């Protein structure tokens, strides 16, 4: 690992890989930091090297992503800095950025002239009564156990929410030998079908992206897994762990639940760096605002992939290619004219992927489908703050002020889980002016104070 890089890319998923590959061979010193030990991002979260997994991620839609991943792994001249978390980034005295990075053995500083944030997205955390019981996971969390650690985290799993991804996850669980008790969509089937039909042209052109959902449905039918529409979770029941889910229609015995209401951009680092942000998707959150080359409002700082708006892995990959090429312009390695021609294919591909993403976003829209929160329902899991503590504070004050008064958002996750909920509560209480949410604070990930005081 070098102490100083020309470019540090944060995130080794489709966008980060594509950007690194677009710049490879230019003589730049490039480091790619990721919290996982192996590259891939969440979409291709790889099993550990010590495992041997036959026919891993063989679906057709994954093929271009897998091909890029293997190219990235084979590339020389790119430093892979896995197993590390970026706690913060700040302007370096005079030039570029200093990134504070934590790893297994402590904290170090990595300097870079330019930084590309390709940090991806996270599941939208959706509170409901009982959601803090052990056995309730984000849908993405369950999928990552199946894909990477090769574990099904329960004997009888219910998937519930609004995002069609839950069909794929349920199918992956069943294909792995696990049992899915039910898949519940809060929205009505005819509404989803109408939205699909309304976008027929777009859908037809992106049919390959819809095929996995069709194949998943077929597999679930063969295994007699009920897929129900217009059925929402109302409460999760159990003494010390999940024992059942009560929906608007019935009670379903289960020992694990995956909540699947969509995804929001990872936004801690761009917000900490002071980059301009815009409201995220229908699911909420904040996207990093960028120009056509994925430059943020902060000089030398770029963002690509889901952190600029959740649109799926294929779109993220095209964004990475464009961002990497744009960074080449800014390093003086290529003329804007040459760069424009290099990315013309990526741009047209991207436009197509964004159309499909918009369709998916419409179908998966969780607004209007959030479960009802009771007075004792925990809103902030880190600090154990129930909605009853927050409700009296919804008097027109800001998210930051509610945080100070209630501790909601003060925990280890830095408000990543509770901020969208709190902003919905604020909006629902009649606050009309826009709230920019919590002020992003260092560190973006938890760290031992002793490590900060005595860096490596």
């Amino acid at each position, binding site marked *: 690992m070098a102490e100083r890089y020309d470019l540090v890319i944060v995130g080794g998923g489709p966008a980060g890989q594509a950007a690194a590959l677009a710049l490879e061979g230019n003589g730049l010193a490039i480091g790619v930091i990721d*919290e*996982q*030990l192996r590259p891939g991002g*969440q979409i291709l979260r790889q*099993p*550990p*090297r*010590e*495992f*041997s*997994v*036959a*026919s891993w991620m063989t679906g057709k839609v994954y093929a271009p992503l897998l091909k890029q991943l293997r190219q990235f792994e084979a590339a020389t001249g790119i430093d892979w800095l896995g*197993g590390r*978390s970026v706690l913060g980034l700040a302007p370096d005295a005079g030039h570029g950025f200093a990134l504070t990075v934590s790893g*297994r053995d402590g904290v170090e500083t990595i300097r870079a002239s330019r930084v590309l944030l390709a940090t991806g997205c*996270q*599941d939208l*955390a959706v509170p409901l009564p009982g959601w*803090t*019981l*052990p*056995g*309730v*996971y*984000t849908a*993405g*969390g*369950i999928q*990552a*156990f*199946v894909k990477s*650690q*090769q*574990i*099904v*985290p*329960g*004997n009888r799993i219910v998937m519930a929410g609004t995002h069609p991804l839950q069909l794929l996850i349920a199918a992956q669980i069943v294909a*792995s*030998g*696990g049992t899915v008790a039910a898949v519940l969509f809060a929205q009505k089937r005819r509404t989803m079908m109408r939205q699909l039909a309304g976008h027929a042209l777009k859908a037809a052109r992106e049919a390959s992206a819809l095929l996995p959902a069709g194949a998943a449905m077929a597999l679930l039918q063969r295994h007699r897994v009920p897929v129900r529409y217009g059925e929402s979770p109302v409460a999760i029941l159990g003494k*010390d*762990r*999940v024992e059942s889910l009560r929906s608007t229609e019935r009670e379903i015995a289960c*020992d*694990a639940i995956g909540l699947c209401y969509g995804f929001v951009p*990872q936004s801690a680092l761009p917000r900490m760096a002071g980059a301009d942000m815009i409201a995220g998707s229908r699911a909420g959150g904040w996207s990093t605002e960028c120009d056509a080359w994925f430059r943020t409002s902060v000089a030398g700082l770029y963002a690509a992939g889901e952190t600029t708006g959740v649109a799926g892995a294929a779109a993220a990959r095209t964004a990475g290619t464009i961002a990497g090429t744009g960074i080449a312009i800014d390093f003086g390695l290529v003329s804007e004219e040459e760069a424009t021609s290099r990315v013309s294919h990526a741009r047209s591909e991207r436009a197509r992927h964004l159309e499909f993403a918009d369709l998916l976003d419409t179908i998966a829209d969780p607004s209007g489908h959030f479960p009802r929160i009771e007075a004792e329902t925990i809103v902030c*899991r*880190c600090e*154990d703050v129930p909605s009853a503590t927050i409700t009296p504070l919804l008097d027109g004050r800001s998210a930051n002020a509610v945080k100070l008064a209630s501790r909601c958002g003060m*925990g*280890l*996750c830095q408000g*990543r*889980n509770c901020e969208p909920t709190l902003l919905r509560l604020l909006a629902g209480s009649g606050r009309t002016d826009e709230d920019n949410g919590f002020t992003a604070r260092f560190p973006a*990930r*938890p760290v*031992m104070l002793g490590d900060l005081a005595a860096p490596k």
Partner: protein
Amino acid sequence: MRIERRVERQAPFSIIVEGETLPAYPGETIAAVLIERSPTIGRTASGAARGMFCNMGTCSLCMVTLLPEGRRVRACLTPAEPGLEIGLG
């Protein structure tokens, strides 16, 4: 439930969680070992059981303590190692 279809693991080793010896396979995260034991990995100050949530390093609800050094780590990002001793809560 560890998936066995199409998966080959190497010979397991042991780690200690709250004094209990558990098998772990090379490459497994601490989270994977814990979840095979129980979905509960700690309790709040008020005594309510808590589990993991995001399994991707974002929610920090799976913090455990590596003993005896006392380092706090996210179980979902940290591989298990032979002889590792872990404290919960």
